């Protein structure tokens, strides 16, 4: 579970959170989430590899032009969030910051949901990203093997599509790349449901 701490919390409080937790500060509340499970982590690595290859390095005729970061600490006004994955069009972040955090809102974020963090990602963080003008949000459910693709329209999330694992996914803003389900969700798990 994501633990909530006293209100209003400050960045000083965030810095006290042990390193084995991911600390975020949203609307004055401090959230400390456990590090992701292996399935979650593999999903992030596979997806990052696919996206960066095409959209950062321009391999295989990919367009390049993006910068990706895994679990960056992003400061958006007074909010501090750590998306699982974030991407910026290089024109919006031509220089890589030397600080411990990034203050430019990403153009795209991806949250990989875990059985225990869906609430935090969908209910708490998606509205923060909308408020700060992130253009695209993906939520990957590695257990259910589904992907929701949202685009910001009039400061609200519009659900562009929901994908399962039957066929490769080509979704905005990376619609030129067809991503295989196993590269999005990790290898298929045994059929038993995840522990709560």
């Amino acid at each position, binding site marked *: 579970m994501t633990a909530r701490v006293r209100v209003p919390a400050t960045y000083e409080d965030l810095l006290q959170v042990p390193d084995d937790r991911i600390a975020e500060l949203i609307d004055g509340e401090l959230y400390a989430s456990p590090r992701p499970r292996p399935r979650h982590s593999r999903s992030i690595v596979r997806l990052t590899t696919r996206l960066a290859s095409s959209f950062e390095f321009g391999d295989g005729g990919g367009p390049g032009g993006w910068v990706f970061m895994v679990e960056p600490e992003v400061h958006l006004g007074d909010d501090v969030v750590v998306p699982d994955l974030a991407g910026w069009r290089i024109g919006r972040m031509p220089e890589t910051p030397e600080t411990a955090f990034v203050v430019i809102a990403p153009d795209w974020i991806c949250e990989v949901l875990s*059985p225990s963090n*869906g*609430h935090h990602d*969908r*209910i*708490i963080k*998606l*509205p923060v990203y909308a408020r700060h003008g992130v253009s695209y949000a993906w939520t990957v*459910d590695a257990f*259910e*093997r*589904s992907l*929701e693709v*949202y685009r910001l*329209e009039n400061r*609200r*999330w*519009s*659900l*562009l*599509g*929901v*994908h*399962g694992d039957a066929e490769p996914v080509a979704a905005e803003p990376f619609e030129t790349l067809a991503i295989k389900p196993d590269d999005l969700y990790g290898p298929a798990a045994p059929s038993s*449901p*995840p522990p*709560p």
Partner: protein
Amino acid sequence: MTVPEVHHPATYEDLLKVPDTMVAELIDGELYVSPRPRASHGNAAAALMMLVGPPFHYGRGGPGGWWLHAEPEIHFGPRIDEKVTVPDLAGWRRERMPELPADHRFRVVPDWICEIASPGTGRLDRAVKMPLYAKHGVGHSWIVDPEQRTLEVFRLENGRWSLIGTYSREQRAHAEPFDDLELNLADLWS
């Protein structure tokens, strides 16, 4: 899950063979069979009916004008028996559906649908049923997750779902299309 022999594409005949202990749905020739939900699921569904029903179905303390139903069998599209879903809850404005259907099959697209998520049904709810509801013009869709204690509220805009509200735990919500009502989310989990 045990399902009797199913043809591909599956038909309404196949759906009728599913045992009464399961919920059966038919979407794009695919038969989906889900187990009866666990108690926390039924509790949230019942709570919503008890809270939304009086003001919107009966007009007690509210505007009325709606039919609200639990687990209606809804037939989408021009042909009956082709696309069949059983949302956990659904509502119709009475001007769009003045009379209830004579049998168990609803043919009018609902104005509101609520799916209560269970572990394992997330992909069916989100990846299969939500797009179907958008395609057929359901006005609002709610997803309630009793495990996570969350409510997501979507409104159809230009054929797409717009996420207009997210609530959790003990928050209070004025959620469309029932925004006249202040919903105390704690009531769904208690």
